[in-house]
C-alpha cells in the first residue's frame, strides 16, 4: 500500500470529498489523463479543481468555455492587428513573430515550468465540434504553431479537470481518453459534514432543522431547478445572520428566495407550500 509515489489528493480544508472521487482524481493524475466530472449543478464540480490545486499546492489555470469559444483560443492567438500596427509605426522588431503569439489557457498550462492544474469548465457549452478539436492536444499534450514553426509541448502534463453539465453529448473519441466521475448529490450525512466545513460553529439544532427543510424541498419534483449545495450554504448564512429561532424553521421557510432561484419555482412554492407545516 505505497501511496506516496504520486501526487495524492485527499480533499482540502473547505472541500469534502468521497473516497471514489479521490480515487478517480488520483488515478487520473497518475495516468496523466483528463478527468471528466459530471453532476447536478451546485455539487461542486468547479470547486473540485480549486480544491485539487489547493490540496496539492499547485497553480490553477481556468479556461471558462462559452458557447462562442473555439478550440484554437485555448492554444494561442496570433495578434495580426498589433503586428500590422507596429509595422506602420515601427517601434518594435516585427520580424520577431513570437511576440505577437499570445498563448491561450492550454498553451499557458503546457509551458508552465511547474506542474499546474488546468480546469476546462463547462466543456459542453461550446460548439459540438469543440471537444474533437482538442483531442490531439489533450492526448499528446502538445501543439504546433505554424507562424513560428514551433511546437509547444507540455513540460509537465497538467492535471486536467473537465466539467460538463451534459447539455450536449460528447464525442466517443473524446470520452475514451478521459477518466469519468459522476458526482452524486450528497447524502444528508455528507451534507452535514459539508455544512460544518463552512460553518464550524453552527448549532446542532439549527443544522438539523435546516437540513430537514432543505431535503424536504428537494423532494418536490415540480421545481425547474432543485436547490443544491451552494444554495443551502447561502441560506444557512442568511439564517445565522438573521438569528431566527430554529423551531420556526419547521413552520415556515424564511428567505426561500435564496434556495429557489427561478421565478417560476418561487411562485410555485409560495402558492402551494408557503403556509404548510413541514
Amino acid at each position, binding site marked *: 500500500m505505497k501511496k506516496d509515489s504520486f501526487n495524492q489528493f485527499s480533499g482540502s480544508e473547505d472541500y469534502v470529498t468521497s473516497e471514489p472521487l479521490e480515487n478517480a482524481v488520483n488515478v487520473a493524475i497518475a495516468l496523466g489523463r483528463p478527468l471528466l466530472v459530471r453532476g447536478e449543478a451546485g455539487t461542486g464540480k468547479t470547486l473540485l479543481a480549486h480544491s485539487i490545486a489547493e490540496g496539492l499546492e499547485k497553480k490553477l489555470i481556468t479556461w471558462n468555455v462559452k458557447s462562442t469559444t473555439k478550440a484554437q483560443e485555448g492554444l494561442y492567438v496570433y495578434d495580426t492587428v498589433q503586428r*500590422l500596427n507596429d509595422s*506602420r509605426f515601427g517601434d518594435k522588431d516585427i520580424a520577431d513573430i513570437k511576440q505577437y503569439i499570445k498563448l491561450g489557457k492550454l498553451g499557458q498550462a503546457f509551458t508552465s515550468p511547474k506542474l499546474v492544474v488546468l480546469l476546462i469548465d463547462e466543456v459542453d457549452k461550446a460548439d459540438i465540434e469543440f471537444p474533437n478539436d482538442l483531442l490531439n492536444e489533450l492526448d499528446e499534450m502538445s501543439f504546433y504553431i505554424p507562424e513560428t514553426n514551433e511546437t509547444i509541448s507540455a513540460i509537465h502534463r497538467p492535471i486536467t479537470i473537465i466539467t460538463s453539465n451534459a447539455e450536449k453529448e460528447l464525442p466517443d473519441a473524446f470520452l475514451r481518453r478521459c477518466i469519468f466521475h459522476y458526482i452524486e448529490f450528497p447524502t444528508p450525512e455528507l451534507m452535514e459534514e459539508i455544512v460544518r466545513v463552512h460553518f464550524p460553529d453552527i448549532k446542532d439544532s439549527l443544522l438539523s432543522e435546516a437540513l430537514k427543510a432543505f431535503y424536504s424541498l428537494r423532494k418536490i419534483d415540480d421545481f425547474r431547478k432543485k436547490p443544491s449545495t451552494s444554495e443551502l450554504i447561502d441560506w444557512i448564512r442568511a439564517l445565522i445572520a438573521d438569528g431566527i429561532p430554529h423551531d420556526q424553521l419547521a413552520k415556515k421557510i424564511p428567505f426561500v428566495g435564496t434556495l429557489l432561484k427561478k421565478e417560476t419555482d418561487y411562485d410555485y412554492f409560495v402558492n402551494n407550500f408557503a403556509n404548510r407545516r413541514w
Partner: protein
Amino acid sequence: MFTDFFYILRQNKVPVSIVEWMTLMEALAKGHIHNLDEFYFLARAILVKSEAYYDQYDVAFQQYFQGVEAPEEIAQEVLEWLKDPLNRLFQSEEEQALFESMDFDKLIAELEKRLREQTEQHDGGGHWIGRGGTSPFGHSGYHPRGIRIGGQPGGRHAVQIAQERRFKNYRSDLTLDVRQVGMALKKLRQLRRTGLEDELDLEGTIKATAKNAGDLDFIWQRSRKNTVKLLLLMDVGGSMEPFAQLCSRLFSAAHSSTHFKDFQYYYFHNCIYDYLYRDIEREDAVSTLHLLHTLEPDYKLLLVGDARMGPWELTERYGAINYYERNEIPGILWLKRIADHFSHCVWLNPDDQRFWVHATVQMIGKLFPMYPLTLEGLERAVGKLVVKR
C-alpha cells in the same frame, strides 16, 4: 487479466472500448489498485463514461465477481426474447373473460408468478408470457387489460405499458445517437455576414494598404453567423408512440444545437388544425394563425409525423381526432396554408416506407416533400431545406 469482465461488460451493453481497457490495464500495472473496492471505483471511472451506464456496470460487476446472477436479469431475459414482434392480433374469448376483472396489482402479481413458473421462450398460446398470444402478459398479443413487456405496441388495449415512460423527459439526452443527429442538423446553416464589423479582413487590409502606398489601412468586416431559424412541429401520441425514442433523439439534437438563430417547437396530434401546443400533453395551446402571422416565411419548417390517420381527419370539417376541436377548416387546408407560408418545408416520416401508400400519407406527401426519419433521410431533408429558392 480480467478479460472476461470486459466481455461481460459488453454483454451488458456498457460501451467499453479497447482504448479504455488498455488504460485500466495500465493503471493495474502501475499498481494503483490495491483491493476490490478500489478496483470497483477505478474500473468504473476508467471504463464507464456516463452515469446512465452505472447500473449496467453494477450488474456486470456482480456477475463477474460473485458469479451470482443479479435479479434484474430475469426481466432482462424476458425483454431479450420479445425483441422481434410477431404482430399477430387475435382474441380468445375465454382468456379475456378470465382476466377482465383483474386490477393492475393483481396482474403484476400474476406476472411474477408466471415468470417463476415459466422457463423458456414462448410464442403464441394463451397462458405463458411470450409473443403474439392472448395471455395478458407479453407483447404484440391482444388482451384488453394486458401488460406489455418490451416490443412495440400491436393491440393498443394494455392497461399499462411495462416499460419506461417514453415521451416524458424529451431532454434527458441519454440516447446514443443524439450526436449523429446533431451532426446532420449542423449542415442546416446559411452563413451570412451580420452584426458589427469586428473581424479583420486580412486580404482587404493588404490591398488597401498597398493602394495607400504602404500606409496602413485597416479593413473590417462583419463576422459570419448562421441565420437559420428552425421551426419543429411534431406529431405526438397515438400512432407515434412506437417512434417516441427516435423522435426524442431528433428533438434532443435540435434542442441542444446552439448554432440556430432561433429554434421553436410545437406539438400536434395526427394533423394540424386551429391550434398547436407547447407541451406534449397538448394543454398549452397556441393559435396556428397567430404563429403564421408572427413567424416569418424564412423559418425552416421541419414536420415530424407518420401522416397516417383516418382520411376524414384530413378532409372533413369537424374531422379532428379530438372531438372538441370542432375544426371549421379541414386539416388538409390548414396544412396547405402552412406549406404556402413557409418557403422551405420538409416532412420527416418515422414510419416504414412500405406504409407510405396509405391515402393520407399520399395526400400530405403532395404538400410537403417527405423523407424517412433515418440519418440518411434527415441529411437529404436538410439538403432540401438549405437549397436556394
